[in-house]
């Protein structure tokens, strides 16, 4: 009887611990957005650009680097691709 109670407690302890470990691992893992046909095509372009000579990249980059308005220096940080220039954002939503 005593053995059974101890066994039960141990068993419960490990079950709960395992559950926490599994849940924690799952929560800790980043759930990436599903690849789409567009994102796959973009990845292919990015891959091709990476392997191509800089002369192939330059026309694209120079198009994006135009700097009359300043404050575009962050263009190479992808996090800023949508908002590296304040006035662009302002123009992005404007509907006049």
């Amino acid at each position: 009887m005593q053995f059974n109670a101890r066994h039960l407690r141990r068993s419960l302890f490990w079950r709960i611990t395992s559950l926490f470990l599994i849940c924690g691992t799952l929560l800790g893992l980043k759930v990436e957005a599903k690849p789409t046909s567009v994102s796959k095509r973009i990845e292919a372009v990015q891959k091709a650009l990476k392997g191509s000579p800089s002369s192939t990249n330059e026309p694209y980059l120079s198009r994006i680097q135009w700097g009359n308005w300043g404050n575009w220096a962050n263009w190479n940080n992808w996090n800023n691709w949508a908002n590296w220039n304040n006035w662009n954002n302002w123009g992005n939503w404007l509907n006049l």
Partner: protein
Amino acid sequence: MILPLARLANSFVSEKYRGPVASYLELLILQPTPFCNINCDYCYLSNRSVRQTMSLETIRESVRMVLNAGLVGERLSVVWHAGEPLVLSVDYYQEAFAAIEEVVDGKCEISHSFQSNGILIDDDWCAFIRKHSARIGLSIDGPAFLHDLHRKTRTGKPTHAKVMRSVEKLKQHSIPFHAIAVITADALDHADAVFNFFQNLGIAEVGFNIEELEGVHDSSSMSAEVNTDRIRKFWQRLYNLHEASLPSFQIREFRKAAAAVLFSQARLSWQEIAMQNDQVLPFRIISVDYQGHVSTFSPELMGVHDTAYNDFKLGKVGEDDLYAIRESKPFRKMANAVMDGVRKCSRTCEYFSVCGGGGPSNKYFENGSFNSTVTMYCRNSIQLPMQVVLTGFENKLRIIDSADIE
């Protein structure tokens, strides 16, 4: 037994907004007056005949609110818009700018921007703009035969010639400016004329807003499905002309699409992708109307009546700080709906990795709910330019399997 308890628990939990909020402010939109001196037939502003102005105290309180919330870093970007800002005098802005500087007290750099219909720009305005290094954008729809179809005075007269006089003034004073053009169905077959006009205008960039359904503008010449192919051809023609001529100006939609192709990362969580979209992240953009009411997400929601969201008035400067606004019921309801809509986009839209969840105001006006997905704006202004630019990259890089994007 369990189900009712779960529902009860959920009713408490669902009241809270558990999504992300901005850690910095991108834009503070101030509506100095809702009044506009012209009457474009596609305008979304409902109160553009109201002549009231934002008080200096409201301006001060607006800036205090964002500073106290810790949302301002090295720069505070103020945009004067949502009406025609230049109907107010240069003196008004002298005082307004001074009031903002006084509140900021050197803690950060301040940049001012105006979006104007360009009718009233004169030498005094040019001197003021130069003195303060303010940015200015003009609303021009292209050549006169297109512009004057929709952008008319309150007595129905054309405005193109007046805008072009302002363009000359800006050039005389060496003030750089950009343009925003609304593209209606009338312009779709005139891509060459539109492109040539902006190429000759001497601007840094033009953004093309494909006519949308927003605010009081509840019907669009672009609504009919039949136009999609015409819109695609319009973008394609602009792209071909732009590529062929290597002009000095940028086309906003192509630049954005190209930047997304080069730098976007699909292998992120949907939340991380959504955080790139300024319109869906609470307090990344804060709008304050002329009476001091505060709103966030899409600025077009300012002035819209909807009792379910308290007319999108989430609080008032001088009375509520952003912490109180964040806890307010209209904000929580709105923010949850916006974020639910973004999540739906992440599950259903092919373009999510380059968009981040669309425009909340477009979803609201077109689909009747923030908690929804694709809109006309998505199709016409994000997806079609992306298709054109991405295919352009693929053709140049000779990536063979460039199947059509649907």
